[in-house]
Each structure stands twice: as structure tokens, then as C-alpha cells.
């Protein structure tokens, strides 16, 4: 099993969700994160005091998938999330040795 993690621009979430579903995976877990990288943050000013926010709002999507589907999902995400501008984000893949569906106790591919 693979865990694919994507950090993307927030407004691309809908496209990425659709892309993942088109590969045949319905489930995923999403969270709001902040990214640092080439894309610069910005300065806010509160009552004259400068406040540097060097982080940029991003959305993180985590998808568990069979090894066989992993590459397709990565491709699908990359295509859907791309704008071509700095800050489009990263996708990475790690191994999951075990997956369980809580409701049923099913394991492995059946748990997805």
C-alpha cells in the first residue's frame, strides 16, 4: 500500500479531488497547512508594526492506494494541481505497511 501526500494550492482542491476520483479512489483526507518554499510569504502591518508571515496557506491531501494505482494518482494530482506558477506544491509517496478500515476491520486493499 502506498500513502500519497500532496501539498497544493487551496483553490485547486476541487480539481484535485475530482482527479483522484477519476482514478477510482473515493476516499482521501484533507487538512489545512502552511507552506514555506520558493513562493514568498508577505508582510502584514498591525498598527504600524511589521509582521512577517513567510508561510503560505496550502492544502494537504493524503490518499492511501494500492501500489498499482499509486503512480496514476500521482500523475492525476500533478496534472490537476498545476498552474505553472511558483508554489504549486509537492507530491510525495511513502509506504504503508498496513491499512485497516475501522468500521469493518478489513485490511489492505479491501480497506480503501
Amino acid at each position: 500500500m502506498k500513502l500519497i501526500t500532496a501539498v497544493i494550492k487551496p483553490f485547486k482542491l476541487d480539481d484535485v479531488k475530482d482527479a483522484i476520483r477519476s482514478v477510482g479512489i473515493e476516499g482521501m483526507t484533507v487538512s489545512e497547512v502552511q507552506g514555506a518554499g520558493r513562493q514568498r510569504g508577505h508582510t502584514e502591518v498591525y498598527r504600524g508594526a511589521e509582521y512577517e508571515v513567510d508561510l503560505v496557506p496550502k492544502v494537504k491531501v493524503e490518499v492511501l492506494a494500492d501500489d498499482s494505482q499509486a503512480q496514476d494518482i500521482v500523475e492525476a494530482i500533478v496534472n490537476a494541481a498545476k498552474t505553472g506558477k511558483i508554489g504549486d506544491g509537492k507530491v510525495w509517496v511513502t509506504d504503508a505497511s498496513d491499512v485497516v478500515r475501522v468500521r469493518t476491520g478489513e485490511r489492505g486493499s479491501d480497506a480503501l
Partner: protein
Amino acid sequence: MLGALVPYQHWLSSGDNTWQLVAGVLVGLMSIPGLAVLYGGLVQKKWAVNTMFMAFTGFSLVLVCWVLFSFKMGFGNSWTGVGHGIFHNFIGKPGTVLSHEGLQSQANIPQVSGIGSMPPFRFPMSSLVWFQFVFAGITPLLFLGSVLGRMSVKAWMLFVPLWSTFVYTVNAFLLWGGGYWAQKGALDFSGGYVIHLAAGTSGFVAAAVIGPRLKRDREHAVPNNLLLVAVGAGIVWLGWSGFNGGDPYFAGADAAAAVLNTNLCTATALLTWVILDMVASPMKKPTFLGAINGMIVGLVGITPAAGYVDGFGAMMIGVIDCVIVFFAWYYLSKIRPFNKVDDALGVVYTHGIAGFFGGILTGFFADPTMIVYVGTGKTPAASSAGLFFGHPWQVMIQLFAALTIIGYDAVVTFILLKVVGLITPLRMPDEVLEIGDAAVHDEEVIPPETLGRMASASVSYENS
């Protein structure tokens, strides 16, 4: 004793003056913080600061113009001198009200008060200037609802003074300053036309001229906090007691009737929208923002009528106006030109259409037994009658007055925006629109506390 200090001149009534001042404060609160946080809570999070900034500055800009020249354009002597026809009764002559006479002498609207249709005022000029300012000041904040999320700050800060000077003062003079429609007997108790129809019309035209919000923003146009919407809406509702209650200019029976009618029509309209939500909306569920919409429709609908109708009339206006606006909101919005213009908060419905029909319904329901001013001796009491009370022509007067406002305001709003557009772009650039508050003002409504660091603290303790 040959003399003594007394607190005020003989013409002044402390009761009437207090009422006028307090009514003004209540209306002021409707703008600041009322509308500022009502709209600030209704927009998506990235535009909350900008929305409030526009509200605070818009209100301030109008006041400065008001005392420097525009109060007299709405409530002074006709600019073109005495004469007949709309062009001699269209706008007042500009002038300041900054001197001690402008502040402390007896209030007076030369073409209206103390000359037959209204008793002489019992409060000073500054009370009148203040009271009428809060109406002038709220109007741009209302149409802000149409253009927020893309109009540039600079364009706003130019447009508001221009609009207030060239549009609002004309509306006010025509209906309240003794101008053409006042002379023809058009009824607009507190601004169903002067304010709400005007805001709906101008906001819609402005939204069309400035163009829509970003597609991305429209797709995420959810409110950022309904509790703040409730704070603003609540202040707007109760503040409206001053909005309509202050307009007889005396703390008498008509003021009290206007207060009660205002709240009654509002409650009725709120409940009407809730019921329509439950039976006629797509989800068939009562919604809080539906209740707020109904509330606003009720407030706007009773505004032209508040002291002219009886309680039955107030309830009927609440029901009828709300049904009209509810269906306009759901169905008219699907057809041209309404589906082609991005009126962000739907001001054209809840203020424009609600104000239009409120005014028309006033022409039906005005009850001549409602006495605005009491006649003594042989002078008959001042009151007005609508179609249901034997005066069918009133409906046509109301209609023509409304069409004047719609036509004039739409055209002049269009021209003014084109002029402003020559000086500075009306829209913010797309890169700025993508970010919102943080790009326009370097501020966010809820700054991410743990994720940033004070770099230069111009106003803060330095370690020594």
C-alpha cells in the same frame, strides 16, 4: 434679577432635540458598526477587512462633504431659484454649515419647514445637519454590498463623495428638501426611494460597470462569521427605530407610530421569509440568513410608509414586499440583466426592489387618519391618503417618483464611474483580488498568530 443664564433659546424643545439627536445616533450605529460588521461577517474571510475599511471611510467621506457643501444641496434653497417644473426644483445651492449659525441657530429647511406643511423646528441646525447626515452617510454603505470584493480603495474614495454630491443630494432635494416630487405629494417617509431604491439602483449599475468578482471568489462566497452578521443585523434592526422614528422631526405621536410600525413590518417580513424558506425554497429549511433577508426587506419596505400607514398597513407591507422580494431573489435573478451582473450581496433585491415596492405600497396603504402634524384652529391636520383610502392617484405619483430616481441615479452613477475610471482603475488588479485583505491592506481579519513574527515594531518596547 435683570437676567440670567438659560440653557437654550425659546424656540428649542429639549424633548424634540433629544429625540432628533438620539435618532441620529441610532442611525449612525446602523452604519458604524452595524453595516460594517453585517457586511464584514457576510463576505468571505479574505474580504472582511476591506469591507469594513470601505464602510468606515465611506461614512467619513460623506460627513466631510456634507458640512462643506452637500447638506445645503439637499436641504437648502433651490440652486436655480424659485420657479416651476422639475429643473427649478431639483437641487439646492451648495454651502457650508460650519459657522455658529450653521450649528446653533434654529433648524430650517427653507422650502419645507414652518411654511404650511410642517411646523417650525424646535431644534438647532446642527441637529438637522447631523440627523440628515446619518442618512446620507449610510447610503453608500448600502451599495457597497454590490461592489465589494473588487472595487479599488482609491476608486471608492473618489466615487463616494461624487455620488453623494451629485446623486444623493438630488434624491433628497426632490423628495425631502421641498423639490419637485415633494411638491407633487410623493410620499417617502424616511428614504424608501431616496436611500434604498437609490442604493439598489446605483449598486447594480456600479456592479455592472466595475465587473464581477473573481470566479474563484464567487465559488467560495460563503460568509466568514454569522455571529457578526447577527451583531450587525441586530443593530440595524433596532437602530431603524431612529431611522423612521426621527423623520417627523418631532417626538410626537407620529414618531411613536413610526417606531412601532417599523418593528411590526420587520417582524412580519422576517417571519414571512422564514415560512417561504420552509415551503418554497429549494431545501425547504428555515435559514438564519433568510430570516435576516426578510428582516431587511421589512425594514426597507416600511421606510417610505412608516408614519403614513396604520398597523394593518404595516403588516401588509411586510407580507407583500417580502413575498415579492423572495421570488425576485430566487427567480428574477435567473434572467437578464440580473443574471449578468455580479451584485455581490444582492442589494438590488433587498434594497432596490424592496424599496421600490415599499414606496408603491405606501401609495395603496397610506391612511389619512394617521396624523403627521396636528392642525389647530381651522388648519387641517397634515396626513396622506393612498388608493385604499380614496386617493388612487397616489400610486401613480409614487411610481413616477420612483422612475425618476431609478433613471437619474442609474445614468449619473454610470457617468460618475466612467469619470472616476479615467483617474484611477475601478477594479483592483487580479493578483490583488486573488489574495484579498492581506494584499490591499497588509491586514487579515484573523492574523495567523503562531505563523508570523514581528519584524519592526515601530510602536513597541525595545530591549535595552
